[in-house]
């Protein structure tokens, strides 16, 4: 055997070994590079479970392209360096789709690994625009809705449906998510001001602040209590802010991002009322869609507990839209699947319609249910879809 032929043979053999995914044509593999331990685990696990429910449903119905979906996992240990390793690990195990951590910062290393390997990745519930083309690349998507949509939707809903005229903005500067909510609010507010609304003041605080007494004093110094306070914050500081606002006797309606969803914290603020949260679906058993109730029961049967917040649902959506795109493309090959995903316009899912474009692998508009907490009891009181999608300038602000 000549040297050249031997070289060719070696090269072919190594290519064969480097592509173990091709070796197994009987199954399709979904890899979870998410936190199974550490600080992010409490946020990743619920979305993972929801994604698993969708996978089990697909398998029970005969699989995807006639093949069963098998699941492989790797723990990011809530660590960014480990996240990249976890991404590589599930890719090595032949993943055709990589589900990464809920948060952009924690999920990006694994998503980047998938991008480099030419594999589609989905953030299970990240709400930053960076979780997609802008922060990872053209093969990355998010199963959730952008934070600015939440702030804009709440402001428009409060003005149109609740007759709120005076607004106050209170921004917790801790995370990009918080700023995103307020960016959406800032985009919506001039439109509402043309119709008679008014922004009467604004202030900032930090999530870890032991006290927001000075911010509260500023609100109380206003000639009149504002109709609505847009509170751009998240756990755990959000609870503290709400508790202090109410303890100081401020009874304005409080508008929030989805991050405040869940009844597990309501014991901290007994008899909380007039508190509004946008959610993709209701965990409180009163969703107008009976299939959501069925999902909640399936989730409870699987995990032993009800969903703790709406952040369970995007995990289900991620697998759902991806599998539909695979079905339509007839392959799991990334380019074809991405092309099918980008054709989706108001694609119905269990948790509202979804749209992807070649510019945005995220939702610039969504149908939200509005949950009100009344005397400590949360329940759906309305439904709102923005009159127009949030434009890219406001999203990328």
């Amino acid at each position, binding site marked *: 055997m000549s040297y050249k032929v031997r070289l060719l043979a070696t090269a072919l053999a190594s290519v064969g070994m480097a592509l173990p995914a091709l070796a197994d044509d009987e199954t399709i593999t979904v890899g979870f590079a998410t936190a199974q331990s*550490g*600080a*992010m*685990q*409490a*946020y990743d696990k619920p979305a993972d479970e929801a994604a698993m429910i969708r996978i089990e449903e697909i398998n029970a119905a005969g699989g995807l392209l006639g093949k069963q979906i098998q699941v492989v996992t790797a723990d990011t240990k*809530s660590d960014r360096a480990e996240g990249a390793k976890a991404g590589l690990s599930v890719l090595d195990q032949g993943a055709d789709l990589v589900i990464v951590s809920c948060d952009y910062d924690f999920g990006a290393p694994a998503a980047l690994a998938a991008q480099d390997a030419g594999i589609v990745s989905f953030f299970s519930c990240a709400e930053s625009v960076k979780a997609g083309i802008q922060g990872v690349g053209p093969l990355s998507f998010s199963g959730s809705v952008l934070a600015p949509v939440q702030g804009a939707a709440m402001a428009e809903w409060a003005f149109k449906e609740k007759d709120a005229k005076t607004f106050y903005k209170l921004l917790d*500067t801790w995370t990009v998510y918080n700023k995103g909510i307020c960016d959406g609010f800032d985009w919506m507010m001039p439109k509402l001001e043309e119709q008679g609304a008014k922004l009467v003041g*604004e*202030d*900032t*605080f*930090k999530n*870890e*602040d*032991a*006290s927001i*007494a*000075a*911010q509260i*004093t*500023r609100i*109380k110094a206003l000639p009149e209590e504002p109709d609505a306070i847009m509170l751009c914050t998240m*756990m*755990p*500081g959000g*609870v*503290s802010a709400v*508790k*202090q606002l*109410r*303890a*100081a*006797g401020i009874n304005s309606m409080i508008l929030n991002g989805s991050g405040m969803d*869940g*009844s*597990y*914290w*309501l*014991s*901290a*603020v*007994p008899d909380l009322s007039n508190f509004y949260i946008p959610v993709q679906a209701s965990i409180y058993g009163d969703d107008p869609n009976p299939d959501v109730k069925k999902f909640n029961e399936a989730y409870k049967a699987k995990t032993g*507990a009800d969903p*703790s*917040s709406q952040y369970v649902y995007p995990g289900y959506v991620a697998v759902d839209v991806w599998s539909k795109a695979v079905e339509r493309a007839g392959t799991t090959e990334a380019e074809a699947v991405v092309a099918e995903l980008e054709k989706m316009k108001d694609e119905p899912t269990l948790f509202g319609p979804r749209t992807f474009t070649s510019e945005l692998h995220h939702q610039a508009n969504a149908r939200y249910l509005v949950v009100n907490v009344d005397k400590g009891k949360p329940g759906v009181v309305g439904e709102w879809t923005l009159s127009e999608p949030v434009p890219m300038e406001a999203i990328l602000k």
Partner: protein
Amino acid sequence: MLQILFDALSLGSLYALGALGIALIFGVMRLVNFAHGDVIAFSVFALLWPSTDALAIVFAGQLPWYLLIPFVLIVGALLSVLCEIVVYRRFRHASPATMMIASFALGFVIRYFLLMLFTSRPKSISLLPALGQPVEIFGARLPLLQLITIVATICILLALTLFLRRTRFGLEMRAAAENFSMARMLGVRANNVIMGAFAISGALAGAIALIFGSQTGTLDIQMGASVMLMAFIATVIGGLGSLPGAVLAGFLLGAASVVMQVFLPIDARPFRDAFVYGAVILVLLFSPQGLISARGTKERV
């Protein structure tokens, strides 16, 4: 105006109590106890039954207030003493830097223990809900808790002053803070004094945990970190080891933070802490030993 004064006093109280807890231990054994923040978190998490569910299972938190308050204080004190016996005692002759690293490590151990039992998800609890009502005082409307915080802090400071000035144990502690080896030679039992300092410091951590917990309604395994940082800065600008200095600096920091929040323009407000730390640097430039430097730490010529 009065409202701002109350806001500043109540935030300052929190920092002052934290700074006192750190200064006490620094005084007797030259240890900057970075685990203090995690003792704060632990003593209030003790009110919950360990569970990884999102919903907190309130356990000891259901006690009536006259049992609940001592419970948290005692948990804080016991944990703090336990830290001394298990860890710090072995570092008695180590350099301050070594002890500081040990305290960081210990803090991590406590925090990850909590993470294991409770997960990283913040837990919610209605702690002393009666304090959530607003009260009217001299025309300023403020939450009852704010008032109680200020009054309680003043009472704690008075009691501690009396204890240190009027009792034998207090005298020993002050002597140990001044010159530890000399005090030992004169018959002060080192272990008792140090354990006493840890117990008081731990109880102070418990007091902060109570105030913090009832103010925010939220228990987070990292909740002690921000107070700990401010308290540590307060002990430094107060003059390391000086108890009155720590308290004074704690109140000043609280006041600076509130005043900046009130008077900074909206665009600068997100950087409030940068301004506060800037002021800290200024203080240290003009008075490197701190506002009231402790006699024991001064360089002798």
